[in-house]
């Protein structure tokens, strides 16, 4: 029994049942496949988290974000600037107690180099309802090349506990239809 020493002194040489052996082989191959698939997704997949990151003093990061916001602010919403950066540029998001700052307006199908960091505690960048979730650390600037594939209004929720106001920490990203299609649409309307 499993609660007594093995009946045979030398149990290593006992034969293995066919059913056990078959299952071991199947499970091993499945494991190898899953292992290979993670590697393969780096080549065939469009969703791989970037490794690019830098150490940065929180105050220095805050200054970078403020400069970026000042440059591209197009309007304000509830006191938060809405920033519309040029397609393909570097954009900055700041997590702090308790908001994601600023609001971004991006264009569908364009790639942006998104920088994310926190200036106080850890936060969880959670883009909803798309459900992209990335951990945000103070002192580390994470750079991700992001391409929105759908237009609309998206919420950013914080999903790392960050104190008593954690559940009030939200942000927003607007994704607009591509300009070319928009202008094409306007032309069509004009006719």
């Amino acid at each position, binding site marked *: 029994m499993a609660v007594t020493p093995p009946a045979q002194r030398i149990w290593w040489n006992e034969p293995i049942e066919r059913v056990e052996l078959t299952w071991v082989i199947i499970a091993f191959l499945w494991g190898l496949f899953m292992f290979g698939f993670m590697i393969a997704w780096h080549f065939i997949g469009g969703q791989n988290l970037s490794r690019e*990151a830098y150490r940065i003093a929180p105050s220095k990061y805050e200054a970078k974000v403020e400069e970026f916001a000042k440059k591209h602010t197009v309007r304000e919403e509830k006191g938060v600037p809405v920033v519309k950066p040029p397609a393909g540029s570097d954009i900055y998001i700041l997590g702090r107690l308790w908001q994601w700052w600023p609001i971004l307006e991006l264009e569908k199908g364009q790639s942006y180099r998104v920088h994310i960091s926190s200036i106080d505690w850890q936060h969880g960048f959670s883009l909803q309802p798309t459900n992209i979730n990335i951990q945000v650390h103070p002192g580390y600037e994470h750079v991700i090349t992001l391409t929105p594939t759908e237009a609309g209004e998206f919420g950013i929720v914080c999903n790392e506990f960050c104190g008593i106001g954690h559940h009030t920490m939200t942000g927003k990203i607007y994704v607009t239809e591509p300009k070319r299609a928009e202008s094409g649409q306007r032309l069509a309307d004009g006719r």
Partner: protein
Amino acid sequence: MTNETETEQTPEHVPMMQQILDNPFLLLFLGVTIPTVLYILWGVMEVASIPLAD
């Protein structure tokens, strides 16, 4: 010390793998060393090698 008593006790040849699995302290060594190297040391080195922002 343990190996001596074992050979005294069992004249038959105990396969290598069974000897390994019967040795709790060897298993303890492996079970602590492997994750320490692969997970902690490698991980800490990666974090330490993150460059400074310009």
